[in-house]
């Protein structure tokens, strides 16, 4: 087990001659503390899988270095890094039985056969594969095969970290929930660092203590689920986490306070310096309310989701989403809305303006 550190890591996949390099990872500095349960969250194509493969050594980054417990492993081959990795689609060795599949990573490392049997039995028990150990792996369903892949990741004891690359994509929804709780349980039992890649925020928020949000090749925020929800550092985090996502509206600044649609607003996070660039305010739909005075809007759409309603309103060209309780009345004539100042933040060039920031 160890602490994994990224120092100025950048990676570009080779391009056909003549084409400019495109970085899949644009400078990542990140520390994965020993024993943490991390989720790596981001949309498809943001560099999540690339980042994972850089950790496991399947890829050598174009620039920068990776440290395990302060020693440089950037050039170390995969086998010597002691990393377990589970892929998005099940990989099983067709000709082997389920037992041999699970034993494969151990036998490759010359583990004594008695110990192999012990470990495999234990892991199979955990994954409900005990009664299939003698079957050929090829005959299993996609679920079963992915459990084998998971099992092969979990069976080794000497691993520095276990990486999961969207491992539950092919699993049935009800099993998904079970397996995810099982992984969480295993994390608490084993205390090994786990990094779980997903583009599903629910999956990320339920699995991880710390969520690392990636966007366009960079890490935009690392935090607990609560932090990501209440203090998004980047408009992308606000938009990607939460359902519906944060409203991001253009604004200008007067005396440190934002102005939207000729309305001077107040923000709990005033800007204390002159800002230049693209200025926006971010407010979650949870913190937009109907009020007696404020910004006049027109109601466009009301979606009733049971316990609450999602109301889409419009002010000139800007669409604003708001969450309204099931029983709260929706004003029929000339509705006006206001924003909760404590949860209103100013963003400059997509990054949140913190007090003291330039």
């Amino acid at each position, binding site marked *: 087990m160890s602490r994994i550190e990224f120092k100025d890591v950048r990676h570009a996949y080779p391009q056909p001659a003549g084409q400019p390099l495109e970085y899949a990872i644009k400078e990542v500095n990140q520390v994965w503390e020993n024993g943490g349960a991390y989720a790596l969250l981001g949309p498809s194509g943001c560099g999540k899988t690339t980042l994972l*493969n850089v950790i*496991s*050594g*399947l890829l050598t980054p174009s620039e920068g270095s990776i440290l395990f417990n302060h020693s440089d492993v950037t050039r170390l*081959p*995969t*086998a010597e890094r002691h*990393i*377990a*990795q589970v*892929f*998005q*689609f099940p*990989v099983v*060795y*067709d*000709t*082997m039985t389920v037992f041999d599949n699970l034993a*494969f*990573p151990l036998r*490759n*490392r010359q583990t004594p056969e008695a110990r192999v049997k012990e470990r495999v039995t234990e892991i199979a028990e955990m994954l409900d594969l005990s009664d299939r150990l003698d079957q*050929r792996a090829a*005959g299993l369903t996609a679920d079963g095969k992915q459990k084998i*892949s998971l099992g*092969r*990741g979990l069976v080794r004891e000497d691993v520095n970290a276990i990486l999961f690359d969207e491992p539950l994509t092919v699993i049935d929804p009800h099993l998904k929930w079970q397996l995810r709780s099982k992984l969480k349980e295993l994390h608490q039992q084993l205390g090994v660092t786990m990094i779980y890649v997903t583009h599903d925020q629910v999956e990320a928020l339920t699995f991880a203590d710390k969520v690392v949000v990636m966007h366009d090749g960079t890490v935009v925020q690392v935090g607990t689920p609560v932090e990501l929800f209440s203090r998004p550092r980047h408009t992308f985090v606000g938009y990607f986490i939460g359902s519906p996502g944060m409203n991001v509206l253009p604004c200008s600044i007067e005396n440190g306070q934002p102005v939207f649609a000729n309305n001077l607003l107040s923000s709990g996070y005033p800007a204390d310096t002159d800002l230049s660039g693209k200025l926006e305010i971010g407010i979650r739909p949870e913190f937009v309310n109907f009020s007696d005075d404020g910004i006049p809007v027109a109601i466009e759409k009301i979606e009733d989701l049971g316990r609450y309603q999602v109301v889409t309103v419009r002010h000139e060209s800007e669409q604003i989403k708001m969450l309204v309780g099931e029983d709260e009345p929706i004003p029929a004539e000339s509705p006006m809305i206001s924003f909760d100042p404590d949860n209103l933040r100013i963003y400059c060039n997509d990054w949140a303006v913190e007090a003291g920031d330039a």
Partner: protein
Amino acid sequence: MRKSTNQKAWWLVAPVLLLVAFNAFIPLMTVVNYSLQETFGNNVFFWEGVTWFEQVLRSERFHASLMRQLLFTSMILAIEVPLGIAVALSMPRKGPWVSVCLVLMALPLLIPWNVVGAMWNIFALPDIGLLGYSLNSMGFDYNFTQQPVSAWMTTVVMDVWHWTSLIVLLCYAGLCSIPDAYYQAARIDGASGWAVFRYIQLPKMKRVLTIAILLRFMDSFMIYTEPFVLTGGGPGNTTTFLSIDLVKIALGQFDLGPAAAMSLIYFLVVLLICWVFYTLMMRNEAQ
């Protein structure tokens, strides 16, 4: 809903039936016909029963050519299959060299059988051929027109040259269909190069390899043109394989009865070996 019955569609199958009848069934039945009777021409036939079959099965000449055939086929399979797999494994999977390799590999397959025979004949001639002359000037006593061992070596090498590409191309296709994730998982699991071959590449190639071996078995077991052009079955009878022998009996000696019986036995041997091999290879798939 009422189901309407219309049997007229059967007429649409008629052309195919007719084609198959003239193409396969009637010729086959003609052979069966010849194999059970004796004729001295003029369309007069005498019933002989299984006499020709007994005669062929007891003939030492048939045994000898069958043995030669089995030896030849096992030799070329033993060389071409491992060689084909090895070449396929060492071919690049990406980049500009892929197409170069593929074209080079496909080249021998595009050359007609009799041209291959003629090429190797000239190539291997001890006095003027590049191969034959070089071997002799290096001190090897090599003359495929007179020495059985030289004739066999030349025939086997010729077949390897002509047909290994087929196995290479089929195996290469099998290898290319393996997703990267398998190799990545193997690296994570710490698998050795041998383990990757044994547990990933070989199982994934199994189906194409089965087909490749079947094709090579059938083709080599029925080989005629190349050795006929190269050695003509000689020296003596040493490279007279089943097809060459069959043609000698049927067209050389005009013994239609024994030749027909021999073709049927020949056909059944090919069928039996293919069936046994295929069943053995696919036995595990069904489980």
